């Protein structure tokens, strides 16, 4: 490299004439130095004519050329005289190109719309989205219930794969979490029950709360987090890579190939997962009952059979398929909503999880009210 000269802009004022000279060979990375000096001098210098002395410059990149071209244009617009020195061929070529192709003052921000416009667009958007979801739900239901009458059309292989992926693989984490929840609930209530000497009632409490509410809810939340998100992401990427379109053109219905196996797998597996969650939760509670309240396993089991009616167990299990339907529907719907950019995968995956957990809780509240009013 030649002698290193500090990058900068030299301004020489002689009466009415200002001479600008570039020092060093500034690349775009260090151009801001020159930009600042140039701005400062244009504000201060009141010269009538400007000379750009570029004779010593050996090379110039397009960013510098643009900066000079802009300053020349600005000077000419304010009726100043601009003189260009002789330049080396490459520098001159670059400056000409910059002048030819420049669009100064372009801005790439889209025009801002008013708040009314935004509200209108958003409302219309929400209505369309809701209608979209209804139509999707309808389509799903038709195919889902239709598949019961055409058992041969169900893709058994995909379904068993999904049963393993979304169901069996979720078993350890669901059981472990439910065991810990059993422990926590039992431990917290033990402290209160001890005060009243009502130790034995821990069985009633654990039995009903776990079988009826906690186990189904927890299983659903974990499945929503595991499988709802994976359905959304997978189907979303398949949409971006045009795999869904490829399936359609080959005459494979994406619903039959992707949607039904996943949905059936979850509908089948959810009650089973809840069953195992029940077991893990009760074992956790039983452990604390023994350690903390001195309730032996035999007494716990006797009391359990006596006071916890089997309907609680069935109600818990019955919720499973409904939760499964919601989780699968929302996950897949969100996957199909993915647009042609990567950000919308993240966005829709998040939405899939949040919305399915929310839907599960709403559905649970609904069941609670209905069953209580029916007297179960």
């Amino acid at each position: 490299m030649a002698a290193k000269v500090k990058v900068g802009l030299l301004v020489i004022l002689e009466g009415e004439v200002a001479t600008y000279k570039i020092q060093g060979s500034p690349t775009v990375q260090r151009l801001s130095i020159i930009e600042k000096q140039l701005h400062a001098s244009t504000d201060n210098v009141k010269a009538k004519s400007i000379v750009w002395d570029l004779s010593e410059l050996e090379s110039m990149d397009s960013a510098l050329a643009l900066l000079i071209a802009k300053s020349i244009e600005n000077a000419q617009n304010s009726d100043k005289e601009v003189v260009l020195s002789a330049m080396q061929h490459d520098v001159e070529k670059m400056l000409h190109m910059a002048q030819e192709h420049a669009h100064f003052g372009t801005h790439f921000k889209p025009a801002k719309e008013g708040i009314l416009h935004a509200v209108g667009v958003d409302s219309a958007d929400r209505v369309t989205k809701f209608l979209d979801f209804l139509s999707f739900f309808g389509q799903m239901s038709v195919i889902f219930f239709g598949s019961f009458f055409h058992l041969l059309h169900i893709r058994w292989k995909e379904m068993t794969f999904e049963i393993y992926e979304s169901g069996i693989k979720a078993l350890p984490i669901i059981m472990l979490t439910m065991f810990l929840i059993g422990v926590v609930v039992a431990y917290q209530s033990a402290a209160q029950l001890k005060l009243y000497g009502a130790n034995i009632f821990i069985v009633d409490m654990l039995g009903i709360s776990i079988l009826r509410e906690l186990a189904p809810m927890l299983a659903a939340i974990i499945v929503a987090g595991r499988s709802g998100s994976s359905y959304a992401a997978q189907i979303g990427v398949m949409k971006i890579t045009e795999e869904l379109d490829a399936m359609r053109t080959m005459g494979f219905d994406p619903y039959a190939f992707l949607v039904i196996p996943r949905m059936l797998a979850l509908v089948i597996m959810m009650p089973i997962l809840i069953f195992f969650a029940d077991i893990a939760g009760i074992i956790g509670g039983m452990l604390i009952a023994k350690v903390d309240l001195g309730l032996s396993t035999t007494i716990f089991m006797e009391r359990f059979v006596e006071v916890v009616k089997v309907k609680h167990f069935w109600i818990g299990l019955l919720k499973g398929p409904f939760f499964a339907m919601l989780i699968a529907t929302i996950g897949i719907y969100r996957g199909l909503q993915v647009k042609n950019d990567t950000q919308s995968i993240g966005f829709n995956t998040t939405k899939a999880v949040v919305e399915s957990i929310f839907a599960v809780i709403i559905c649970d509240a609904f069941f609670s009210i209905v069953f209580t009013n029916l007297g179960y």
Partner: protein
Amino acid sequence: MHSNKIIEVNNVVTQFGKNLVHDGINLHVNEGEIYGFLGPSGCGKTTLLREIIMLENFKSGSIELLGQKIETVGMREAQRLRMQWGVLFQSNALFTSLTVAENIALSLQEYTNLSPEAINDIVAFKIDIVGLNQFDGTLYPSEISGGMKKKAALARSLVMDPKILFLDEPTSGLDPISAREFDTLIVKLRDLLNLTVVMVSHDLTSISNTLDRMAVIDNKKIVAEGSLEEIKKIKSPFIERFFSNKRERI
């Protein structure tokens, strides 16, 4: 034109697991030329390109880029090298969450302290020289056509005024008219911006329109290196098959 070697590849061996891809590749690219990697598919053209731009490691040998050996280069020098090249990927690799103008402006915002107006001026200039409309800058990659995406990606790779431009199959997926436009654009930009261009290409017309020199990779080795006329004289089954295919020439 004085021939300064800007890229030198010496004895590069590449192996993926048991699969030997390159067995001693030697070639060099001179400053200011448009250089192409040719060869049957699966011969490792793109792999070689990816090795030169430090995305892939090679087993042995050495690659020298702008006087730096990339196999021993430190983090800082590597970063400095990256400032001096632009890469156009086969699938464009535009960031889908940013508009075209934001895609182009990204490096400027990250690596310079220029004012937003100056950045916009540079972006507008690059948009113009690749032949897009200023309005296209406000659109997202999903809203523009394949040819426009190519041009936008090219503008992005040119934003820091690189010395070397790497193109991975630049005309694939373009219609013949856009492809020829793109060829003209590459040659024009090389002349305007004093670029050295290295590209992987399958497109015969594009090869004869743009390339000054090229290397033919076949059977893990370079079977020929030189200008189109020189290459055509060399006896190799691939070269004969490749250039006898007249379908593409109208």
